[in-house]
């Protein structure tokens, strides 16, 4: 089974970005992917107070194909926490944080509180992890160190210039998992598997605007052993998501 751990649904007229569940599923079909995890581009409660409902409706339309992650803005204290709990009550499988869009440092108390709340449901927190301040592997590693009980996923595994750093911090903190989306170096997926073991790397595409078909092929170009490739392409994500309660 192939699971895409990173897809988006949203409708943002200001950016001209519209990503519908139907397009996500079409792109999954093109790539032979069984299931995907979807999340919004913006956060609840700001700038979209209805972001949780938007994702819930997308998943309800494709219950056998899509799982939901809740993208929450950490600044809103108890309101943020209540939104996350409501998302889990709706069957969501994890938390997504994008520190560049929220200007909330991964190690800030508001953020740690959300990560710990997700971990209480055995749910992962997926971070945007790239080359910008607030989202570098070392910044997110501070959250991993503060929340050893939480599974924290480094989406994009460091982007373009922080991939080696992402692998290094994942060696340091066993609760970090690397996610492959849009990072352009297949050889670094192989290196991550060799250094971290095949259980701590998961496939994601950042689709539908990044191509799930190309992103799956990128993992195959890493030249992993068949068992490791199965783990990375789906079984690891499945194991993490099935543990959520």
């Amino acid at each position, binding site marked *: 089974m192939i699971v895409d751990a990173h897809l988006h649904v949203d409708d943002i007229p200001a950016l001209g970005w519209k990503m519908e569940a139907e397009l996500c599923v079409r792109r999954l079909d093109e790539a032979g992917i069984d299931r995907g995890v979807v999340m919004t581009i913006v956060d609840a409660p700001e700038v979209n107070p209805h972001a949780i409902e938007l994702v819930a409706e997308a998943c309800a339309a494709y219950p056998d194909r899509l799982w939901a992650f809740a993208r929450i803005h950490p600044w809103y204290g108890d309101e943020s926490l209540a939104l996350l709990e409501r998302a889990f009550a709706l069957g969501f499988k994890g938390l997504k944080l994008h520190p560049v869009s929220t200007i909330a440092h991964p190690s800030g108390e508001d953020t740690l509180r959300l990560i710990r709340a997700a971990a209480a449901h055995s749910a992962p927190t997926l971070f945007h992890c790239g080359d910008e301040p607030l989202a570098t592997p070392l910044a997110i590693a501070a959250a991993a160190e503060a929340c050893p009980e939480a599974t924290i996923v480094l989406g994009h595994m460091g982007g373009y210039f922080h991939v080696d750093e992402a692998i290094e911090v994942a060696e340091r903190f066993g609760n970090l998992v690397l996610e492959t989306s849009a990072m352009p170096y297949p050889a670094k997926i192989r290196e991550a598997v060799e250094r971290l073991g095949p259980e701590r790397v998961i496939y994601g595409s950042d689709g539908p605007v990044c191509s799930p078909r*190309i992103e799956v092929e990128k993992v195959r170009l890493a030249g992993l052993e068949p068992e490791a490739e199965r783990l990375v392409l789906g079984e690891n994500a499945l194991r993490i998501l099935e543990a959520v309660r």
Partner: protein
Amino acid sequence: MIVDSLTFLGESLFGPRATAVDLLAVLDDLGVERAVVCPMKPRGYHLGPANDLVAEAVRAHPDRLVGFARVDPNLGDEACAELERALGELGLRGLFLHPWEETFRISAPFVDPVVEVARAHGVPVIVAAGYPWLSEGLQVGDLARRFPDIAFVATNGGQINISGLGQTDVELALAASPNLAVQTAGVYREDFLENVVARFGGGRLLYASAFPYLEPRLEILRARWMHVDEEARARILGRNARALLGA
């Protein structure tokens, strides 16, 4: 005909290395007929020997490789003289500038003299683009606006940003400068590439692998699997490079 509009030869100060034999094997494997080859920044720091190495490869494989010269605008007259040598004596066919590895702002006035040499020879300019502070989309666009009669090609879709935050600047640069095109290598978001085609037509995008820095077997999929019509795909995969870069 498929043309890879950006590859590198030599031994980089930063690790990657490739010979003409390595490159031709990759091209053959992917069914790519021709490639633009640029020098790497060599371990000895001096770009002259790197230009010699590219010229030697082109002389050995004139039907497959088109060579570009690399100079460091920080060196002023010395850079202009080296570019004159490379475009004249060595027979190279374009200018490659790498603001990140040579450390200069592409829109700085002291870059203009080497671009003037390129203009005098009627050759195009490839800019290693998307690097923060030094070759952002609008900075490359600023140079392209000052030299409207030169063809500029920005690598990496003009942006290296996994948040997509640089995309609007690149589209503004493309809108302002019809003489600017972008390459596909390493681009974040396939819809950015598809939007370039939808908004600016099929003539502003060129397939590039950036071998050996990036993996050509992955990079060519961005062009082959892009959701565009076959006419646009043919232009992206080869015709644009032949028209803009003489490849």
